[in-house]
């Protein structure tokens, strides 16, 4: 695969679109949980807020600054875990983690839905942290660990 094919895989249209116009870029009103995430290497910082009712994520949003990959991943995440149970969100987290670290061959891409656009990340080891930041932060919020998570 040539260098520029790799790049096209990383910066797919959907990724760029989400990074420019992130969904659920706000603070959840009446949030029941939140956590801050930080990637010290590149200075990416974001806050995830959640409303969990009866074990279901009723609302989820994020705010912060970061590169295209971290923003797009956060934006896509909010869409993917809304109305899911904690357990379901955890399964999605595991799939995404495998996708960005091991590549699309290692997971059931169909089950990932829209999140499959993150498949290009695995060719860029230096960018895995960017793609996972929002997810680690979500997990911290779900586990009630409000303190800042760090990808270092």
């Amino acid at each position: 695969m040539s260098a520029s094919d790799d790049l096209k895989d990383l910066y797919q249209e959907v990724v760029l679109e989400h990074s420019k116009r992130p969904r659920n870029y706000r603070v959840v009103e009446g949030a029941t949980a939140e956590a801050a995430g930080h990637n010290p290497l590149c200075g990416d910082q974001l806050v995830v807020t959640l409303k969990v009712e009866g074990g279901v994520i009723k609302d989820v949003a994020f705010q912060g600054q970061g590169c295209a990959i971290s923003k797009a991943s956060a934006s896509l995440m909010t869409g993917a875990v809304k109305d899911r149970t904690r357990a379901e969100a955890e399964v999605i987290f595991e799939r995404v983690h495998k996708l960005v670290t091991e590549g699309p061959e290692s997971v059931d891409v169909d089950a990932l839905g829209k999140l499959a656009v993150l498949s290009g990340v695995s060719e860029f080891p230096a960018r895995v942290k960017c793609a996972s930041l929002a997810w680690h932060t979500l997990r911290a919020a779900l586990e009630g660990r409000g303190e800042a998570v760090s990808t270092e």
Partner: protein
Amino acid sequence: MSGFDVKKVREDFPILHQEVRGRPLVYLDSAATAQKPQAVIDALVRFYQHDNANVHRGVHVLSERATEAYEGARETVRRFINARDAKEIVFVRGTTEAINLVAQTYGRKHIGAGDEVLITQMEHHANIVPWRMLCEQTGAVLKVIPVDDRGELVLDAVDALLTERTRILAVTQVSNALGTVVPVKELTRRAHAKGIPVLVDGAQAVTHFPVDVQDLGCDFYAFSGHKMFGPTGIGVLYGRKELLEAMPPYQGGGDMILSVTMEKVTYNRVPYRFEAGTPNLEGAVGLAAAIRYLEALGMENVAAHDRELLAYATQALEAVPGLRMVGTAREKSAVLSFMLAEVHPHDVGTILDREGICIRTGHHCAQPVMQHFKVPATSRASLALYNTREDVDALVRGLHKVLEVFQ
């Protein structure tokens, strides 16, 4: 340019002649660490093949040779920065250790509760954190000279910040994040007028122009071998002899003592008092080789090359649509820090990397100055004596490619 042929210079650096990701390597990250000429690589190999032994302790021929090489390197460093005496040259791991050494010896002795340490907003973390730690240990207060929107020090603020409680001024000569050249000679003059000693962080300076510590007048000067085409793990603390001699030791161990009983230790004279344990012998030898390499090129010639290339690169980058330079000081050294439209520096770095172009993205270990410019990170291209206009042109093409991806 007299005697300086960049094409020839490139021939001296084997690492530059390779393809990465299917493209010729374009290395624009020398402010992070510089590449090594064959002369340095050869010096390391020669030392291990012929002269290696521990220094200052054996009576045998190899130890003699190793000691000669190590102490010869000290003399070479002295000459390079025009120190008065080779005893004023302390070998350390790098700039970071040099500054920690001063903070923990000079600082612990002379700086107490309520005293002030003056630094600047544009320091590398290596010239912030050791002072912060000292302040926490002693109750001293850290004061900061602000920078303006060009990335120059606000010189008007300096005199008021040099107070009767100021015990040291620690300042970089060239900002690694912005490229600003700081008038350290003038600052030293002002500090000395009030009897305040000055430490200069020369990590980004010694590779780009001649440095004369006697002319600067500073009391301490710190730099790293690896940024000036020498090995990693070796660096220099220059200190005026009167100050070094009055300073307590840093680490304890072999080589830094004259005699040891269980009751009493007599410390060695300077600079050995500050070099506990077996030093980085091949590092010192390699650093000396790097210095001889620079001296053969002529630091004036290097400076002229870097200046001319910086001017070319500044103009070329400023013509890229949406590019905003961070750090536009009137006097700059070979660093170009910038933001490209709305694209995050990390994305810029990834796309350039696929073009075979190495730059640095991030906060450059200088978060306080990033905060001043209200950016979490920048993209930074840094130039060295082996870079060419072609490298700059490749960077510009790469940036257009970034814009294409992000349209």
